[in-house]
């Protein structure tokens, strides 16, 4: 069958009334659970798993896919409005999205997140249709050494995201890696850093970590300094004024394009996904920007790039799942489980054996993205109303939602206690200028990194030469080395310049020698 034949089967499947309804339900539910912290797409898809057994396989995957990419947008809503990432892929949106909200541009940030996600979703769906099968074959060349090298590069890039110094970011990233090892070792079964506490046997949950380090820490910080906090800037009242203006669109066009391309590439790599894509897009935008100082101060590029990238990656990650049977993350692992229960074995032959499923799911993403933008853009003015609620009323509500989110993960108050402890730690980290964002991403990547490193060392019989023998891994390691050299060289050069500048100032103004230098 040719591509046109597959296309017509895909449209026939996706545009049936039942599948449009299923898609709408998935996207709506995804947006809602993305907004609610803690109750992430993994938990929701797991809860709905028994329901999908009564559906046909295509409808089941369409529903779960809708929840997944709907949650990417829902997660950005709370990131922008109250600095609580509903999803790990939305962590990076907090940085500039929340700053934009504080400066009266919450509507613009929400608008660009919605339109960026929409554009990325449409472009990626079309791209998936044509090049997905080819790219999926290339991804087969990725083995453990390539994954390990990719994650190492990702971790080094994470340190560029942070607002604090590179050294601080690296320390926090290493701490994140260390925290990811807490719990029972998956290979040997040994307990690591559990101190005999049952609550730590399964390690830290990423949702608990995010809610503690971001939401609870933010609440404590705001509770302490409320007397010093300036009144929030008034948000525009009319939807038209809230949406991105011409200048904001101009600044967002290229970040959306780049974020889409990057998200697509990282999404189709097995093991890649929305979280890595959003962080990588932020780093890329900050690196190539003529005004990197704007990032962290409410740069719209810092919202447009990552939001496009995470939606692009979320959709592209269905390709390794359907064509290779490799889930990129926990949500897709549940989707895989649903397919296996129904007797559908994802793999290279799925495209020809079940074209209605393969192409129906891809075309349904077009429908889902249209629903997402139609559903969310008119609601921006409603979402922005949230900012008018005084923080003294919002704070107790956020605490209750976080507690429900943490408790619902495992029906255990140990998770709630852990979240509170992490919240206190996050508050203290802010006090000493340590940014929790690199810690969280390193934590997410830690398990992938450890598994890939262990497998690589087994393949290489303990020798690190395995990373240099394989061209893709060697290239990625080379990129990491270059990044470290440039970073260290840049820091030394900047320090030398600063010292030279101080020296020349001191020579021209000898009286200043006795005054303290600026920090």
């Amino acid at each position: 069958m040719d591509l046109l034949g597959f296309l017509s089967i895909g449209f026939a499947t996706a545009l049936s009334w039942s599948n449009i309804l299923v898609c709408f339900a998935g996207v709506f539910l995804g947006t809602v659970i993305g907004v609610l912290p803690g109750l992430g797409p993994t938990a929701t898809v797991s809860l709905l798993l028994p329901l999908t057994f009564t559906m046909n396989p295509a409808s089941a995957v369409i529903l779960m896919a809708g929840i997944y990419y709907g949650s990417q947008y829902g997660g950005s809503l709370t990131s922008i409005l109250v600095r609580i990432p509903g999803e790990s892929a939305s962590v990076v949106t907090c940085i500039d999205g929340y700053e934009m909200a504080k400066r009266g541009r919450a509507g613009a940030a929400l608008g660009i997140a919605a339109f960026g996600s929409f554009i990325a979703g449409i472009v990626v769906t079309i791209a998936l249709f044509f090049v997905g099968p080819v790219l999926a074959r290339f991804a087969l060349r990725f083995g453990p050494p390539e994954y390990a090298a990719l994650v190492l590069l990702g971790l080094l890039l994470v340190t560029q995201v942070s607002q604090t110094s590179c050294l601080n970011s690296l320390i926090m990233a290493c701490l994140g890696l260390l925290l990811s090892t807490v719990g029972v070792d998956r290979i040997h079964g040994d307990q690591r850093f559990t101190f005999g506490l049952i609550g730590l046997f399964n390690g830290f949950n990423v949702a608990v970590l995010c809610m503690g380090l971001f939401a609870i820490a933010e609440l404590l910080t705001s509770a302490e300094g409320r007397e010093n906090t300036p009144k929030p800037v008034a948000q525009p009242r009319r939807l038209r004024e809230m949406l991105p203006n011409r200048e904001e669109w101009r600044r967002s066009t290229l970040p959306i394009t780049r974020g889409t391309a990057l998200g697509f590439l990282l999404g189709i790599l097995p093991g890649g996904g929305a979280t890595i894509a959003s962080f990588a897009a932020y780093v890329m935008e900050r690196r190539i920007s003529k005004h990197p100082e704007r990032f962290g101060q409410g740069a719209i590029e810092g919202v447009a790039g990552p939001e496009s990238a995470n939606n692009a990656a979320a959709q592209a990650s269905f390709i390794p799942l359907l064509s290779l049977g490799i889930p990129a993350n926990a949500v897709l692992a549940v989707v895989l489980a649903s397919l296996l229960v129904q007797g559908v074995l994802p793999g290279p032959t799925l495209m020809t054996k079940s074209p209605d499923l393969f192409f129906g799911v891809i075309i349904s993403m077009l429908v889902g993205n249209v629903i997402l933008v139609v559903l969310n853009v008119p609601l921006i003015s409603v979402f922005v109303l949230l900012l008018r609620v005084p923080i003294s009323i919002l704070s107790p509500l956020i605490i209750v939602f976080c507690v429900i989110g943490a408790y619902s993960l495992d029906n255990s108050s140990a998770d709630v206690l852990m979240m509170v402890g992490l919240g206190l730690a996050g508050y203290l980290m802010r006090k000493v200028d340590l940014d929790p964002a690199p810690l969280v991403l390193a934590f997410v990547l830690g398990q992938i990194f450890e598994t890939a490193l262990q497998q690589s060392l087994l393949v290489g019989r303990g020798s690190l030469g395995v990373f240099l023998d394989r061209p893709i891994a060697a290239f990625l390691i080379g990129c990491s080395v270059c990044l470290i050299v440039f970073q260290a060289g840049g820091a030394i050069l900047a320090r030398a310049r600063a010292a030279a500048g101080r020296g020349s100032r001191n020579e021209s103004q000898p009286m200043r020698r006795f005054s303290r230098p600026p920090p």
Partner: protein
Amino acid sequence: MTVQSTRLGRLCSLGLLWAVGILAIAMALRLGLWRSGSPGPGLFPFLAALAIVVLATIGMMAAALRRWPAAPAETIHARGRWRIALYVVALIAYALLLEPLGFHAATTLALLVISRAAERLRWRTVVPLIAGTLFFTHLVFARWLGVYFPAGTLWGDLLG
């Protein structure tokens, strides 16, 4: 102004991380770095902890050698300190009482402390806030999303 902008603050924070790294190295070594021809459970934590120790040492050396400006006093209102203390107490109590008292009673208590004592909201705001929160969370989480709320072990014991 953060604590980090003083030499002592910087040294203390990095010193704490350094100590965490050393402790983790000791525990990782006990777990084993290599076991029967394959990487042991301690290898990855050892590498991460070693990196923490090395980076924290560099940071402490840089902080010790750097010239620091005199730190202006941080202004935190007494009411801010009181509020944050109440938040911390309420959060810890909420986590500890969630299962013995059940979700509804523990939430009511936590909201009461936070909104009335910490935020000093009026009763006419506090009562609808608590009632609305309980109603909304029950409807959305318990009824629609099927999230399990603890009913409270204490009540069963008390009522026999």
